[in-house]
């Protein structure tokens, strides 16, 4: 599979590792220069140093050939834009992280699989461990 990951923060970078371990082809779009450099240093992947709002960045990354786009930035508007542009180019699987639960409806209307509020998910996981005791 060819996966485009938007945002190379801690979530994005971990995702790259997982995707590479499963032999997927990966491209990353990251607006922060040092984070982009750090990912490039660690993994042999394509890294684009640009904002998603920059015109044509998804075309540079060959989005029409992508099987999935995963948005992991801390900015919901950037995530939404990535999803919208991905949908326009006919990418089948659209996945996004959402930082503010209020935005969930907007994403779902677009047909995006979402993970809301990652901190809450972690907290739930931790609590589940407690329950199992």
């Amino acid at each position, binding site marked *: 599979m060819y996966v485009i990951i938007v945002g190379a923060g801690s979530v994005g970078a971990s995702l790259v590792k997982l995707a590479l371990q499963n032999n997927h082809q990966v491209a990353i779009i990251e607006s922060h220069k040092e984070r982009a*450099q750090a990912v*490039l*240093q*660690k993994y*042999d992947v394509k*890294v*684009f*140093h640009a904002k998603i709002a920059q015109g044509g960045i998804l075309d*540079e*990354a060959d989005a029409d050939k992508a099987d999935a786009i995963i948005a992991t930035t801390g900015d919901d508007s950037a995530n939404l834009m990535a999803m919208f542009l991905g949908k326009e180019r006919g990418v089948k699987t659209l996945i996004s992280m959402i930082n503010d639960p209020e935005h969930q409806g907007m994403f779902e209307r677009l047909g995006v699989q979402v993970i809301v509020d990652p901190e809450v998910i972690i907290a739930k996981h931790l609590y589940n461990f407690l329950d199992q005791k």
Partner: protein
Amino acid sequence: MKIKINWLSRNTKAILRDVGLLLHLPGVMAVVSLPICLVFREYYAIPAFLLTALASLSIGQLLYQLGDYSSETRLRHAMLVAAISWGVVPFLGAIPLIAIAYHFATFPESQTILNFQNPTNALFESFAGFSSAGLSMALQPSLLPHSLQWWRSLMQWIGGVGMIVLVIAVLEPSTDAYELYYAEGREKRIALTVTKTVRKIWKIYLLYTALSILLLRITGMPWWEATNHGLTGISTGGFAIADDSMGSYSIAVKLAIIAVCILGSISFAVHYQLLTERRLSVLWQDAQHRALWFLIVLGTILLLLENFWHSGSFLWLDSLFQWVSALSTCGFSSVKLQNWSPTAKLLLSIAMIFGGAAGSTVGGLKLKRIVFLYQAILWRFRRLSLQPHEMMRYQLEGKVITESESSRQIKGAAVLTLLWISLLIFGVLILLHVVKPEYTLSDVIFEGASALGSVGLSVGISQPDLHWLGKLILMLFMWMGRLEIVPVLLLFSAIVSNIKSLRRQA
């Protein structure tokens, strides 16, 4: 005394102290050589070596006492120390040659030794010795006294691994040891500290020297010849004590010499890994050593084909021998290279410009830089195929580096290559005027590349009857090439700026 020292700046004093330290070295070497005179009953050589020891130790001590600890350590200091020491030590190394040559003036034995009465010849021999170049003014080295044969080999053996490497293994210089180590054209550390690194290097060096001598002995060289050629082989020096270098030895000996040359052109870091981890695979783990093996094979094939084209015979062994000898900057020869085609000479010149792996005893640009430049070409093309916002992944020797780091590395390699080629062209332009008319442009390029890469292969230009200007150029080449040019240029510019400021004061 106090007043006299005061006009010297603190920096100059620190440099003097370290140069003084290094100038002790030929003295110690001369003392070590005394038993050789006794063993071979060459008693006339004893005063010559004692004189060398006296001159070296007294000048060394004087500078050492005059000098002072430096408060700051800078690479500039270290480079000046290296440039001055490597420029002055050969003058001391020439003393035994001149002194013994004058001893023979009263009852002449051969022209070979008498030629060293001319100080220029002796100095040339000494520069070729310490820089481990191996160009020689000795017409028939076999006719030299044993003590001088030994002295030539010893100079190369010490010069090959580096005077500074030896000195910081046992003494504490005032300039930062790592910077001195670096200034002598070495940079890789294999232990935590530089002192530990150089001690390890010396252990490896001693081990391999012993192995080389043994190998040459087993393949059929008499002990004395095996000892001398072992010393000059592992140091990739190339002084021989036989008149036609390796020409008249058996095939087994030639193959053994090839093995020694290759050992000498592998970096100490890899030798260390090889000895501690006992895995042969470390020999092609990094790009530099892969390039070494690749170039040995490719060059030999090219040379075979060229020799077949030129003379109708592949000259299997000679092609392999000469190519390895040139690439490893060892400089032994198995044939008279004058008779080879211009293309073959230029091919060998390229090998001599490249040299072996960085961090070994070789001269030349060293393969690390060649690999960098090759990598830079690949990067250049890859950049062109990138998307506008796509970031470039710079990978060097298995490690991913940042863009600024990559351009720093490439710049270093490119600048040195440019300096190397420019200097070679400059030297060739002058040499063409002073060599005998039978030597062509390719001969002159060959000899220049040989001196600059501290190789020592010769088409015959380096002879006692060469014009003094030609000898001077070749000596400069050996000095500058051994230190990778920059330290010597720095010394020249420091001298010029000092003269300027003195003039302004006057």
